């Protein structure tokens, strides 16, 4: 079996002495869509922040493409090809949509091809093309999420980590976002997807991990999750 692209081993992390992640281990194989499922406040975002280099883990290892990346700076990690589309979008509020996208292609590896790449992004996310000169802070919630996704896609990279793409959006917008994610998966992108809503990922994810109070309490594929009434009721409220 080939080595997984991303491998997290016995990861511990927290803020100011309060531990959030306890002994978290999982793999993301190249081309796979792996999901972290669980209620809010149970460490999903902390996990992605650790992998992306925004938070230094207190223990354990993270391997990406054969390199240890735990404790590396975020600006280094993204250079290696780990791209995070963060929760709350983290846009540059006083920059135009176009400049936000251009920041997505900041790394030398994608800067030169930005002009072509951005056209592809406009095709996937036509809404952004209508808004190019608008400031990011004037966008609607759905548009903001699309901008965050477009910006993340422009960074290239070998793995895309998406934090709660459906958070705070209207169902119809969530449908659009998940259509995009489904297309990304079909095109062979490696994706680590954090989600609170099981129904959105049951058919989509190759493997689902259930994160509860900082532990992975269950792992399996969508079908197994659907058939496991006990897990569904205990952790996801039916």
């Amino acid at each position, binding site marked *: 079996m080939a080595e997984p692209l991303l491998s997290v081993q016995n990861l511990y992390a927290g803020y100011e002495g309060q531990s959030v992640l306890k002994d978290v281990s999982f793999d993301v194989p190249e081309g796979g869509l792996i999901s972290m499922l669980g209620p809010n406040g149970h460490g999903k975002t902390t996990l992605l922040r650790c992998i992306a280099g*925004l938070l230094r883990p207190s223990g354990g290892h993270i391997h990406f493409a054969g390199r240890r990346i735990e404790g590396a700076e975020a600006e280094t990690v*993204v250079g290696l090809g780990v791209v*995070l589309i963060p929760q709350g979008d983290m846009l540059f509020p006083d920059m135009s949509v176009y400049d936000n996208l251009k920041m997505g292609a*900041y790394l030398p590896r994608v800067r030169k091809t930005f002009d072509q790449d951005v056209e592809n992004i406009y095709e996937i996310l036509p809404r952004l093309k209508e808004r190019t000169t608008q400031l990011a802070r004037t966008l609607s919630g759905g548009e903001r999420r699309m901008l965050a996704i477009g910006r993340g896609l422009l960074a290239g990279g070998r793995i895309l980590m998406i934090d709660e793409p459906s958070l705070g959006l209207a169902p119809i917008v969530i449908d659009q976002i998940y259509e995009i994610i489904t297309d990304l998966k079909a095109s062979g992108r490696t994706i680590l997807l954090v989600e609170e809503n099981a129904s959105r990922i049951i058919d989509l994810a190759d493997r689902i991990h259930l994160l509860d109070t900082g532990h992975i309490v269950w792992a399996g594929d969508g079908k197994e999750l659907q058939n496991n009434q006990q897990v569904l009721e205990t952790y996801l409220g039916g």
Partner: protein
Amino acid sequence: MNFFIQIIVSGLTFGAMYALAAVGLALVWGAFNMLNMAHGIIMTLGAYFVLVWAELFGLPLWFAGPFAFLAGGIVGAIIYFISAHWMLTQKNFEVTIIIATFGLGMALEAGLMKLLRELFQAAPYAQPLSLGADSFLVGDVPVSYQRLIIWAVAVALIVLVALFLTRTTMGRAIRATAQNRDAARLMGVKVKRVYVIVLALASGLAGVAGIMLSSFKDVVPLMGQTPMLKAFIVIVLAGLGNMTGALYAALLIGMVEAAVKVLVADKWGFLAMLVVVVIAIIWRPAGLFGKHQIARQ
């Protein structure tokens, strides 16, 4: 009518100098919440470098500005590496960096005075780059060519900074860092490099502002103090970190100061300026153009 012209002429000059000093401060605060208390001494150093080089090596006039910019920039980068670089992860960085740069500024000032005492005769010096009192008339008010050059240089530099920030990859990275530091890092921006560049740029502008100041007054070791204080007042009035606001605030402050100096008396200028600022801050605690509260959540 003459009063009016006099106020405009003198207000624009003060405003231009304050703007140049304040834009740098605003830029640095915006990028990484650093208030650089050594900004004043950098202005002084800019003036001295030009003076010393002109006296010793016969610096050509056209090169004075670029030279002061470069020298100021290098001092700024050095200040970054001996203070901020090691303090970034501290919890109270905003406070500790003020104390650290205040101390650094004092040390530089003391060193400068000692050096001068040993190398030269007593200060003050006249800035050799001053164009003197040659002037032309607007209405009945004489306007010196010196002022014209100050306006031209200040406007040109501010336009250049604006172009740099909006049109270049590094400029965009600086704005991104100021607006959301973690997001900028996620895009691959090496934020520490951004900090050095921003501080060097701000200090370069301070160096140039130093020549402008010294062309009006003499070159003395403490000459940067009051202008720095005024530049701080400008950025607080504008709303910390707001660059465009800082430009308007600098002009406003310059005009108020000029108006009081012309209409009342010289000594009331600074006081009037402070009164305006206090009232403005009570009225709008986040500054005239500030969107956010100053304290971090």
